[in-house]
């Protein structure tokens, strides 16, 4: 049981898919300009990883090893299309905010990475926990990055103005504060992720490679 809980907890901290394994960076850079997009992406990945890991795990003994990557890809793609269609039918507004992101889930290397490294060699329950754990680890970083980028870049959180109105010059802006438009561009996401990695490794020196 203790081992099972590690499957969930490890990816949140000491084996985080983004900051330690450095996977899924592409989507972490692309979609974190707004907190809302980060959250929605996290939820979608949570679903795809949880279900995908279970499906692959159930099929692990019958998948031909020569085409296993293709099979994994088909499973992800199918799940993503299902998510997309369900959202379009029952949560149309949400599916519009998501736009291209849903399709981008397919390219998330964490998903393929966990299929290949874990689900192919473990039972469905443990694979499910591993999928959820890694998706949550991904989500934490995405939300932290999205929080800082939206706050410093647009002065808003979830679209609500936090620091005052930049045009009417109220709140912080009355004192000459300006939004840092650079935060909205992808390179700043890389720097924010870098800072998270720095903080994490300085707190836990065991993570530093020689």
């Amino acid at each position: 049981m203790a081992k099972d809980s590690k499957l969930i907890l490890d990816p949140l901290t000491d084996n985080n898919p983004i900051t330690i394994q450095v996977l899924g960076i592409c989507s972490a850079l692309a979609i974190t300009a707004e907190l809302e997009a980060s959250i929605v992406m996290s939820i979608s990945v949570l679903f795809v990883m949880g279900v995908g890991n279970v499906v692959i795990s159930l099929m692990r003994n019958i998948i031909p090893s020569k085409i296993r990557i293709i099979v994994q890809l088909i499973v992800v793609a199918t799940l993503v299309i299902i998510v997309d269609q369900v959202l379009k039918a029952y949560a149309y507004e949400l599916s519009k905010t998501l736009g291209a992101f849903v399709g981008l889930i397919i390219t998330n290397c964490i998903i393929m990475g966990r299929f290949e490294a874990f689900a192919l060699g473990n039972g469905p329950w443990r694979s499910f926990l591993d999928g959820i754990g890694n998706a949550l680890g991904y989500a934490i970083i995405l939300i932290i990055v999205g929080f800082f980028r939206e706050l410093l870049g647009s002065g808003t959180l979830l679209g609500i103005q936090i620091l005052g109105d930049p045009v009417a010059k109220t709140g912080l802006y009355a004192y000459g504060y300006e939004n840092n438009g650079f935060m909205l561009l992808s390179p700043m996401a890389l720097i924010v992720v870098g800072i998270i990695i720095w903080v994490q490794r300085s707190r836990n020196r065991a993570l530093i490679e020689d």
Partner: protein
Amino acid sequence: MEKRTDKNTYTVLFAVGMVLVVGAILAYLASTFRPIIQENERLEKQQNILYTMGVNNNTDGAANFVSTEQAPKLFEKYITKQLVIENGQVKEDKEAYLIDVKKEQTRAKEGKTRRLPLFVGEKDGKTFYIAPIRGKGLWDAIWGYVAMDKDMVVQGVYFDHKGETPGLGANIKQRYFMDDFYGERLLTEAGVFKGITVSKTNADPTNEDKNDYEVDAIAGATITGDGVSAMIKKDLRLYVPYFKQLKNKG
């Protein structure tokens, strides 16, 4: 010994089986959800059109449509006429709002005539003429609806996009951008079509000047902004003859 799953015949059979199963699942899902999705899109068009003439649930700073339940009723109430302009001929068509602007643009490119939908709305004694527009942003399609009065002065707009960058180009559907268009003119005093440019250099961030044919651009969204200018100029220009006719009549 070779494992059973390593054999070529097994691999091929597995691949074929997988394709069949996945194909069947997706085909089933697509056909089940199709009508629901189409209905969502239909209601969204009504919500968009109503939005431009001020029938919306806007809250402070945020753009909100009327609810999907109310949309058909309000559409019936406020949109008094739906017109289709084809070769200068104006016809009424109850389903003009379902005309696919993308398809019409392709028809025009192929040299066929383009049907131009126009919706006439009445609210508080004011008449609105609402036209759909469509163009290209940075990543994908952008589109919108523009409500005008009989002199082609903008009374409201709604923009939307398929995949512009969140926080940058995607902000064309934010109120602080869309509201700037209110009161802007499309025609010069002499009645020549000039359009509206999304400008980085208009030195008018709060958009006080309504006669400059410009609105303030979004920083970091240059190409999306240019796309907005282009679709306004290209698509609304086609409606000028109708408005001229309207003026001569009235």
